[in-house]
């Protein structure tokens, strides 16, 4: 366990020095300040029309959307690099010469990257909330925001896991593109099938629908998870999701994908 913790810490230290993280963080802060300045400038007019609550909700939604996109970008970059960079720098054989299993090694790299991405995400959202609260003159955020952030973090874990798998099997740029494509495909198939029951899912079946249904069934439903987060953020009362069922599906498919990843990695020449 101690060796796993050391590897996890080593991953966090490695990713913390990433130039991508620095660049994205600076860009995020600039965007947050610009949005906030714009809101302050327009506040008198907006507040009179839609009220403080409406302005806060609209701004929060816009900022969280932007931050989510940056977070996804960061998750893909970190995911692609987290194991690949060890192999490129010939550090992986050293790490695996310690009494650690390949399972512990993958977990430490993926979880370490996820922790950094989640910290970036939480800090960005909190900065945005503080600034927005001061602009509209009332405290916004609260438990619903934390709930939304939790679901986005779950979605990022899948992206990092898939990106690290892709990174091991193809060049970085290709892995980046393939992971982005994976996210788009899963989100699109989740969007299409989310409100359908089993009988309507399978009627008028064709190849594209079959592939989409397969993706919807076997991969963690990051589209639905993101939608749940968004619904919580917007305080939607009649959500179209059964949250325990979605979380159960997420957990089972995540474990299955991780097991597949481990199976492939355990046979790999390092």
């Amino acid at each position, binding site marked *: 366990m*101690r060796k796993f913790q050391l590897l996890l810490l080593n991953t966090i230290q490695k990713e913390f020095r990433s130039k991508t993280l620095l660049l994205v963080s600076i860009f995020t802060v600039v965007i947050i300040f610009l949005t906030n300045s714009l809101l302050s400038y327009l506040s008198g007019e907006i507040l009179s029309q839609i009220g403080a609550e409406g302005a806060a909700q609209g701004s929060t939604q816009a900022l969280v959307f932007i931050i989510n996109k940056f977070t996804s970008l960061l998750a893909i970059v970190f995911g692609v690099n987290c194991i690949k960079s060890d192999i490129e720098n010939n*550090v992986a*054989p*050293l790490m695996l010469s310690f*009494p650690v299993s390949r399972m512990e090694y993958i977990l430490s790299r993926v979880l370490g990257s996820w922790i950094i991405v989640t910290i970036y995400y939480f800090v960005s959202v909190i900065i945005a909330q503080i600034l927005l609260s001061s602009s509209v003159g009332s405290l916004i955020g609260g438990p619903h925001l934390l709930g939304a952030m939790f679901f986005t973090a779950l979605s990022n874990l899948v992206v990092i896991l898939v990106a690290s798998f892709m990174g091991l099997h193809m060049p970085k740029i290709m892995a980046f593109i393939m992971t982005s494509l994976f996210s788009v495909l899963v989100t699109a198939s989740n969007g299409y099938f989310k409100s359908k029951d089993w009988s309507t899912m399978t009627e008028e079946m064709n190849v594209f629908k079959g592939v989409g249904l397969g993706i919807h069934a076997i991969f963690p439903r990051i589209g639905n998870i993101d939608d749940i987060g968004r619904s919580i953020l917007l305080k939607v009362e009649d959500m179209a999701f059964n949250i325990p069922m979605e979380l159960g599906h997420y957990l089972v498919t995540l474990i299955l994908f991780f097991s597949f990843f481990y199976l492939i990695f355990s046979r790999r020449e*390092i």
Partner: protein
Amino acid sequence: MQIIKAQNVSKNYGSLTALQGLSLTVEEGSAFALLGPNGAGKTTFVRALLGLTKCGGDLKLQELDVSDKNARQGLAYLPEKFNFFSYYTVESVLSFYGKMQGLNGSALREAIEKALDALNITELRGKRMDNLSKGQVQRTGLANLLMGENKILILDEPFSGLDPIGIKELKDLINNLKNQGKTIFINSHILSEMEQICDQVAILNKGHCLVQGSLSEVKGSKSLEDAFYDLVKGDDK
């Protein structure tokens, strides 16, 4: 105790045979040299020993199958080209290795001081890995071998990248570690150095073991170089 036991170990890369029916044993506390020409399968065997590559046959380390992570308990490995994250300083590399070997607190600090001193790199302690010369990086890798209570040291071409002073110091270090009862497994093709530090030898060619035994048994009345040449050339015919 046979700390390394290989029986009929085989490894193919597509149509290329890297190891074929390799069998050898390494006794605990010995300084063992795995010799062979380029492409003989030495590095493949080391990688198999560390579980980095899968192979056929039976390969045990500390009486455990190499796929078991516990087989690598108390093991330190130095690859031919040691490398570590560029932003780590020499001291932080040693600290990481020490912690992975179960050291902490004053024991860790003491081990770092000893390792820096033994390799004459105390003045490099605060330098980042990307600011070191090739020889300094290799010395840092060697210093890692001294972190913790390792029972078995696996060195892959350890003389690579070292200047004559470094080679002399490494030989002294290995002799010192040998006297402490550690098992030292060295993979090399520099016969003159191996002859001075190892007491057990195996010669590999084309993926199989031509001979294994004590240094005197293997070389007989010849020099190790002549014995090696005769055996390998004889096998090639």
